[in-house]
């Protein structure tokens, strides 16, 4: 499985999910339309300052890969953040590191978050900023990220990688498959059994 496309570069450490999706857009009972508001406050602030946010750059449209720095997606557990990114068109994220809940949420949606060495991420970002048309390939079989003639090592936890390769990132079927075992495990827990007295 390889995701290939142009990339958006979003610089900065500790980008929180309130940034990615401001809370006012969570007032809804579905995820529909969230893509219109991804990074909305940052995009407005950039426009007001006469600058262009990466998600508004002409080259950003149609991009499939997002390049980020350290601890991307920290803070709130809102799945609205990766939902919005995925609906906007992001199919893979490459960064120095990811916050844990964001990583789980993105994985559950089928969006791999691959880590790369900080110096490699810096180099990838520089290449894409120089040449916004550059194609980035995130290859999950070889765990490699390729841009033009360069190749970088990517990492992904084994379980997540296997889920993407097998197409089994939606865990519901897996977790309900052996429901008798779930019932048995629950019955063994004293707090579910009501702390019964030991049998005579």
């Amino acid at each position, binding site marked *: 499985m390889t995701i290939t496309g142009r990339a958006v570069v979003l610089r900065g450490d500790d980008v929180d999910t309130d940034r990615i999706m401001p809370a006012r857009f969570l007032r809804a009972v579905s995820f529909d339309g969230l893509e219109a508001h991804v990074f909305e406050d940052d995009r407005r602030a950039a426009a007001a300052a006469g600058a262009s946010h990466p998600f508004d750059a002409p080259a950003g449209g149609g991009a499939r890969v997002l390049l980020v720095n350290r601890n991307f997606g920290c*803070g709130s557990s809102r799945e609205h953040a990766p939902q919005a990114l995925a609906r906007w068109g992001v199919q893979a994220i490459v960064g120095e590191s990811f916050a844990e809940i964001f990583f789980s949420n993105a994985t559950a949606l089928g969006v791999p978050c691959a880590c790369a060495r900080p110096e490699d991420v810096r180099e990838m970002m520089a290449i894409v900023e120089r040449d916004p048309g550059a194609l980035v390939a995130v290859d999950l079989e070889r765990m490699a990220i390729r841009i033009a003639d360069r190749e970088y090592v990517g990492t992904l936890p084994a379980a997540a990688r296997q889920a993407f390769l097998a197409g089994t990132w939606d865990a519901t079927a897996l977790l309900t498959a052996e429901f008798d075992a779930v019932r048995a495990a629950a019955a063994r827990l004293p707090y579910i059994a009501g702390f019964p007295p030991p049998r005579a």
Partner: protein
Amino acid sequence: MRSTLLRKVWDLHTVRRLPSGQTQLLIGLHLVHEVTSPQAFDMLRLRGRRVAFPDRTFATVDHIVPTDGQPRPFADELAEQMMAALERNCREFGVPLFDLSSDDQGIVHVIGPELGLTQPGMTIACGDSHTSTHGAFGAVAFGIGTSQVRDVLASQCLAMEPLKVRRIIVDGALDPGVYAKDVILAIIRRLGVQGGVGFAYEYAGPVIERMTMDERMTVCNMSIEGGARAGYVNPDETTVGYLRGRRFAPAGEAFDRAAAWWRSIASDPGAAYDDEVRVDGTAVRPMVTWGTNPGQSAGVDERVPGPADVADADRAAVADALAYMDLEPGSRIAGTKVNVAFIGSCTNGRLSDLQEAARVVRGRRIAAHVRGLVVPGSRRVRDAAEREGLHEVFLEAGFEWRQAGCSMCLAMNPDRLEGRELCASSSNRNFKGRQGSPTGRTLLMSPAMVAAAAVAGEVTDVRLLLSRSEAS
């Protein structure tokens, strides 16, 4: 073999090892609220599935509720839709709901403990990052997203990678005027906002052992702000004493059997940890954040750092944070003028938080330019505070006394900052725009420090006001 609480609880809840190498982990308690659940229930419906363990699932409404009066339908049509969706979903799937007609309604992380739903040795999940709060009881509790909420509803399980454990020992004793909030802010400043990724934090040592359950909840609540998905305190007699007589706690002889089991799941002396950190509690002072993440904080008597004071890698972030906050490098954080004072949230919206804030406020008025809000974390907290007359203390000082909810912590309800307002806040996140205005600013601190800032009209050392209160 000597084992940590995390390892014991993990093993007890392991259903099976999945082919991927992950653990299928049983979730003993699933807490649900209106923001992260509607899409999950819709997915269940689409797939023709039921809630697997409706008796291990409890719902409440907290994020979107107005706090200045709660007649239905809500004025905000979107909030009303979310409330109606939760009511319909709970009815259809048989999940108990503590709604606005219930005396038990409140912030999910306040009511779980107060009802005795949260107990030692459980695994707990909720579609909310501050689920780490429940670790205060020696539960393994973590936040999840909506797809995982769907999975827990459908199977009562999650597919998880094992967590490492970092033991954080807080030595010494806290000075008067220094609180649990200051301890956790000091820990996050030291270890960083991503230092906890991959870890559960086990909080230990004399300072933690002396803490009440409310205080332990404040500490565990902000584990996620340090990057740790879960944080916990080993259960002890404080834990057992808190749970005795709670509605969903075992009663009679079953309580004694429960207490014995709770004690048994605490980490064994001599258990091996993946990492260990010692913090000197005696050196912790009242903390205030100056930046745009919870790791960017200083003691109230310290100066705001500048880009030149930090490592190369952090320079740009510090410059950006100070520009957003409109603070000068090297300036004192004390004396920073505040426009709004917010006391509440799942971090600091419990009775003891209101008591400490009231102690500062009693007999004083808040500054004329400050808008002050006190928002109890639950209806029970609100009722208990009113029985003590705390609402009168706050009202006489010029604070608004509100209904229970998440309120101004996160801007999903009418309580929001406006424009560039700067808020002294007892909540958990100082992210840009977090409190509802895209340009609003947040200074995190303890509830007593918020009360002091409200009175002085600017950030001030609460210890000065406390010593004057005692002298009078």
